[in-house]
C-alpha cells in the first residue's frame, strides 16, 4: 500500500438481500489513524457495511480495499490486517476470559514471547484481570464488551471494525471503552465504529451519516453542525402546545418538537435565522409569552435536517406504499 493512499477505501460498495438494498453504491475513504464513524439508526446499513469490510459478507457490487487488500477478491488477506467486533457478543460464553483471550491470540498467531506483555496491557485498560477465570457468559454487559475489544486488539491490528460497541452498556464502562479506542487510535490504529447514538458521534474525527444504505453526508462533526449553527432555536412560551403547533406551521421551519420545557425548532436550510423573527411570527399566531434563543445545534438536528431534505428530493421514500415520515 503506497504512502498517501487511504487506509480504507469503499468503492461503490453495495449489498442486496433479495429485492431489498441494504447498502446502496457507497463510496468513501478513511485515512490511516482516523477514528471514523458510521452513524445512523437501525436499518441504515451500518452492520452490513462492517460485515462486508470484515470479509464475512460478500458484496453484491463494488469493492472495499483495506490496507491494500480487496474484500471482493481476497477477504482472507483483509482478515489478517483487521479486527472485527460484531454487534452481538461474538465470544465464547462457555470459555473463561483468559481462555477466550488465548484462543484469539492463537488464531492470529501472536508470538508467544509477546503474549504476556500484551495481556498485561489489555488487562490494565479493561480491568478484567480479577475476572480472568470467570466464564465470559457471566460478565456484565460492559465487561463483555471490554473483553470483546481486548480479543480484537490482542494481535495489534492495523484496522479496528467495531459494531455498536457501547450499545446498552453502562455509562462508566462506556467511558472506559472509548478511552481504549482513543488510545489505540492515538497509537496509529485506524478505527471504523458504527453507532446509532448521535451524541457519541461527536467524538469521531469524521463520520458518515447513513440513511437507508446511503451516506447523506461524510464530514467532521463540526462541519456537519456548522451548517446548522444558528439554525436551531429554543422557544419557551406560556402555552408550549400552541407554540409548537404554530411553529410547525411556519414557513422555513423543518421541525418543531417539544423537549422537556422548551420547544426545539430546527429551521430549513437558508431560512431566516433571527430569533426575533421567529418570536414575532409566533406572537402573530397568538402565542403569548414567547421567548426565543439560539440553541447549540446537535448532530441529531443535522441528521434530521438532512433526512428531511433527502426525502423531499425523492418523490416517494424507498418503502413505496408506506407513508413517509413527515417532520
Amino acid at each position, binding site marked *: 500500500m503506497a504512502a498517501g493512499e487511504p487506509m480504507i477505501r469503499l468503492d461503490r460498495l453495495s449489498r442486496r438481500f433479495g429485492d431489498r438494498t441494504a447498502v446502496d453504491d457507497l463510496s468513501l475513504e478513511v485515512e490511516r489513524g482516523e477514528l471514523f464513524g458510521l452513524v445512523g439508526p437501525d436499518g441504515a446499513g451500518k452492520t452490513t457495511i462492517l460485515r462486508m469490510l470484515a470479509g464475512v459478507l460478500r458484496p453484491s457490487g463494488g469493492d472495499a480495499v483495506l490496507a491494500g487488500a480487496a474484500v471482493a477478491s481476497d477477504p482472507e488477506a483483509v482478515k489478517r490486517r483487521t479486527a472485527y467486533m460484531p454487534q452481538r457478543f461474538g465470544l465464547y460464553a462457555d*470459555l473463561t476470559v483468559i481462555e477466550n483471550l488465548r484462543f484469539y491470540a492463537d488464531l492470529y498467531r501472536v508470538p508467544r514471547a509477546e503474549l504476556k506483555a500484551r495481556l498485561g496491557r489489555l488487562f490494565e485498560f479493561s480491568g478484567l484481570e480479577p475476572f480472568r477465570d470467570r466464564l465470559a457468559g457471566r460478565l456484565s454487559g460492559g465487561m463483555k464488551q471490554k473483553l470483546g475489544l481486548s480479543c480484537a486488539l490482542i494481535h495489534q491490528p492495523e484496522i479496528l471494525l467495531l459494531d455498536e460497541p457501547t450499545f446498552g452498556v453502562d455509562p462508566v464502562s462506556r467511558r472506559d471503552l472509548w478511552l481504549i479506542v482513543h488510545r489505540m487510535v492515538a497509537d496509529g490504529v485506524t478505527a471504523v465504529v458504527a453507532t446509532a447514538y448521535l451524541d457519541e458521534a461527536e467524538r469521531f474525527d469524521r463520520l458518515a451519516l447513513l440513511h437507508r444504505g446511503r451516506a447523506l453526508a461524510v464530514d467532521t462533526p463540526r462541519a456537519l453542525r456548522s451548517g446548522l449553527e444558528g439554525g436551531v432555536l429554543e422557544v419557551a412560551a406560556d402555552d408550549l402546545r400552541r407554540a409548537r403547533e404554530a411553529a410547525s406551521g411556519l414557513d422555513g421551519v423543518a421541525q418543531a418538537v417539544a423537549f422537556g420545557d422548551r420547544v426545539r425548532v430546527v429551521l430549513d436550510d437558508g431560512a431566516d435565522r433571527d430569533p426575533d423573527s421567529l418570536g414575532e411570527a409566533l406572537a402573530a399566531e397568538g402565542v403569548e409569552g414567547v421567548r426565543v434563543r439560539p440553541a447549540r445545534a446537535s448532530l441529531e438536528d443535522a441528521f434530521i435536517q438532512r433526512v428531511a431534505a433527502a426525502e423531499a428530493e425523492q418523490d416517494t421514500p424507498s418503502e413505496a406504499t408506506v407513508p413517509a415520515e413527515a417532520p
Partner: protein
Amino acid sequence: MSPRRLLAIARKEVRQLSRDTRSLLLAFLLPVLLLILFGYAISWDVRDVRTGVLDQDRSAAGRELLDAFRASGYFSITAVIDDPGEIRPLLDRGSVQAVLVIPPGFAADLGAGRTARVQALVDGSDANTATIVLGYARGVVASWAARRGGDGAEPPRPPLVAQTRVWFNEELESKNMIVPGLVAVIMMIVAAMLTSLTIAREWERGTMEQLAATPVTRLEVVMGKLLPYLVIGLLDVALSTALGVWLFGVPLRGSLLLLAALSLLFLLGALGLGMFISAITRSQILATQAAMIATFLPAFLLSGFMFAIEVMPRALQFVTYLVPARYFLVVTRGIFLKGVGVGVLHTQALLMLAFAAAGVGLAVASFRKELA
C-alpha cells in the same frame, strides 16, 4: 495450515464439550444405554414357549412325546387342556403361544406302523416367532421319531440325511449378531449427531461470525472440530467392544487393531457427514432432524442390522449400497465373529477409506466463512 490454530480450535472444542452436560451424555451414556437395551431386551431366540397340551390319547407314547417337548427346553407346558373348546380362548388371550394336540389313536397308529399325527397349533399373530416355534416343534418331533425308531420294526430310511451345522454363531445366539451390528449403528448415530450441532450452534450464537473474521482456514476449523469428536468416537468403540465382550460374552476373534483402524475411518466419515449437515443447515434444530434422517434411520433399518438385506425388496437392496453402515457391519461382524482380516475385508476397508474422504471432504467444502 497452522497446527497452532488447529489445536486452538480443538482445545476450545474440548473445553466447551467438557462443560456441556448434554453433549457428554449423548456421547457416552447413549451408546451404553443402546447396547444394554438392545443386548438384553431384544432377542430373537425363542425359549420357554408357553404351551398348552391336549392329550386325547392318554397313552404312554403320547406322554413320551410330550416329555420330549418338555425336555427340549424350547417349550414350557403351562396348561393342560381337557376340552378342545378351551384351545381357542387360551390362544386368544395369549395365555399360551402354542397348543399341542395328541389325537385319539396316536399310540395305536404308531404301533400299527401307520402314520401317526400330532397337531401343533401356534399363535401366528407374530409370524416370525410362529415360524420359529413351528420349526422347533418339527425338530422335536423328528428327533423323537428317529430315536423311537430303535425299538421294534425297521424305521424307514430316508435317502439323504442333512446334517446341518451353524458356523460362527453355533448356538445362533442372536446377541452375537446384534452386538457387533449395534457397535456399527451406534457409531454412526452418535458421531453424526454430535457433529451436526457444532457448526450450526456457532452460527446461531454469533461466535462463528467473529471466528469467520479471523485468518483461520476452513480446513483448520473442520479438522480442529473433528479431532475431539474422533477421540470420543474411538472411546465409544472401545466402550462398546468392552461391554459386548465382557457383559454379553460376544466373542472377539479378529484383530483389535484392525477394528480400531477401520473404526477410525468409519468415524471420520460419519463425523464429516454430521459436520456437513451442520454447515449447510446452520440451524441446530434442522441439523438434528437432518442427522436423524440421514444417519439414524438408514443405519438402523437398511444396514442389515435389524433386517436382513436379502429379504428386502429389490429396490431397497439397491439403496442399501449407499448406506455406509452396511459395509461397516460386515467389518464388525467379520472381526468379532469370523476373525477375518484385511485379506477378506479389503473391499470394505477401501470403502471405509472412501467414506472418510467423502465425509471430511464434504464438510470442508460446504463450510463457508461468510454469512452469505
